[in-house]
């Protein structure tokens, strides 16, 4: 077993060597511009792009013509939201999203608010899932778009996407979903799920960074987005710019691999995740899983260790790469807004660790991590005045703290 162990696969994933192999020719001998129509270099590149487009479309049950390549999911989210807002401005100015969305959605919504759009940020329930009745009530005749992520990047909670899509469809509102954490991990199908627009990226499923896509429905309804990047009219005018051919080839290869290996791989990861959870829950008291366990990505475990601060825990397991919702690990010095949205209390947000398992993790690694976390949590609890008080029977919620 090699240290450090990478368990931060929601942030990014390593490139699968099989993906790299597929990409390599497109850096050197097959370097053509996919938009060059009059020589074999261009044709070769175009063929590779079209093949990848099909691989990606196949993974999500779409038509290849519905895939618009971008630089990544942040760009896809921007194109979806701003592009729909602009295109459908005459129809309405209201967008509905949720408090636990990725910043690429939330910050884009804030930008749109500055331009006169109205945005509803729905709260989530304790398990991280949105309330469908609340969604029904939030839709008005001015609503043009509902955007709800498929699976959350911190807590791995999977939203009832098909239901959301159905509600949107019934009310004649477009539905966009940021699905970067879900594709290639759990079955996603744009028809079954009633999705009109969907953001994807390569690097979360063992493909390269810097390449993503926006799925834009072509039929029933035909969806249009106003381009946010203008130039040569690439990607049916929705996103200009020379295509990143090696990246796109890698993204396509990654999707094909994920589709082929998903049933077996998701069962394997679920087994490892559950083993890790069991170790932590057996060896330690007062550990809490954040968000629904039932509606959750198989490779995610977001868990709070009461009375232990997250960054100090990360320091103790410094040969394991994970993330924490602790304020001390974020640039803003605020604890995770996703965990806060669950209403768990800031103290549990500070105590949280996100384990993101991936294709290259082994059982030996998971066993090592489980034991190491148990050891460090026990050590830090010996150091924790809160643990001592809790053990003495003090109700921490009733203590007058000197907030600073």
């Amino acid at each position: 077993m090699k240290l450090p162990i990478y368990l931060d696969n929601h942030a990014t994933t390593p490139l699968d060597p099989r993906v790299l192999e597929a990409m390599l020719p497109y850096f050197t001998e097959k370097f053509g511009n996919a938009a060059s129509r009059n020589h074999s270099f261009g044709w070769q590149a175009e063929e590779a792009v079209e093949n990848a487009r099909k691989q990606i479309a196949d993974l999500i049950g779409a038509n290849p013509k519905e895939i618009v390549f971008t630089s990544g999911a942040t760009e896809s989210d921007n194109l979806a939201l701003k592009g729909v807002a602009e295109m459908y401005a005459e129809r309405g100015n209201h967008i509905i999203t949720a408090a636990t969305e990725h910043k690429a959605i939330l910050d884009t919504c804030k930008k749109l608010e500055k331009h006169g759009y109205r945005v509803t940020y729905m709260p989530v329930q304790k398990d991280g899932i949105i309330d469908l009745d609340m969604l029904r009530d939030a839709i008005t005749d001015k609503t043009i778009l509902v955007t709800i992520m498929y699976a959350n990047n911190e807590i791995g909670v999977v939203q009832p996407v098909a239901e959301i899509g159905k509600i949107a469809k019934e009310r004649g509102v477009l539905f966009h979903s940021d699905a970067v954490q879900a594709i290639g991990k759990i079955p996603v199908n744009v028809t079954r799920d009633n999705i009109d627009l969907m953001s994807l990226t390569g690097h979360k499923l063992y493909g390269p960074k810097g390449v993503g896509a926006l799925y834009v429905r072509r039929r029933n309804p035909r969806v249009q987005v106003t381009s946010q990047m203008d130039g040569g009219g690439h990607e049916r005018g929705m996103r200009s710019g020379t295509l990143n051919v090696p990246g796109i080839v890698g993204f396509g290869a990654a999707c094909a691999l994920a589709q082929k290996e998903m049933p077996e791989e998701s069962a394997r990861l679920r087994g490892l995740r559950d083993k890790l959870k069991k170790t932590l829950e057996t060896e330690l008291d007062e550990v809490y899983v954040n968000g629904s366990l039932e509606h959750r990505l198989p490779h995610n475990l977001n868990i709070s260790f009461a009375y232990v601060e997250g960054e100090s825990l990360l320091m103790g397991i410094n040969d394991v790469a994970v993330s924490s919702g602790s304020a001390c690990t974020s640039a803003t010095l605020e604890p995770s807004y996703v965990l806060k949205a669950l209403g768990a209390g800031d103290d549990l947000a500070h105590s949280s660790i996100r384990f993101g398992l991936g294709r290259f993790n082994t059982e030996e690694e998971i066993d090592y991590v489980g034991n190491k976390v148990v050891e460090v949590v026990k050590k830090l609890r010996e150091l924790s005045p809160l643990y001592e008080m809790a053990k003495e029977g003090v109700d921490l919620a009733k203590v007058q703290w000197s907030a600073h």
Partner: protein
Amino acid sequence: MAYSNKVLDHYNNPRNVGSLDKSDPNVGTGMVGAPECGDVMKLQLKVDPKSGIIEDAKFKTFGCGSAIASSSLATEWIKGKTVDEALQIKNTDIVNELSLPPVKIHCSVLAEDAIKAAISDYKKKAGMNRQPVSEAVS
């Protein structure tokens, strides 16, 4: 974030972890911070009533590595000092000793506050204790 060697050393081998008897009249207890802010420090000191010297100090901290190191260092520094000398310790001394980056300065402030809170608790208790003694003398 990269930690200084001194922070790592205090984190890996924290000095003076533990608790003193809160009800001991010679023990002062300071508890500062709040769980929702991600930092709580408990610092206790025991004063020799004859010499006024801090003969023992203990801490427990819920917080990041820098918070643990700041409070560990604080207990190390106040031991052997008089109460008044201990009050002279400034958060900037802790920042310099541990090479804390700007985002961790609040950890050192909390440690200074913990020392002051513990001493203030001790003084309050000592004041209350002297009362019956002086009455007995007069």
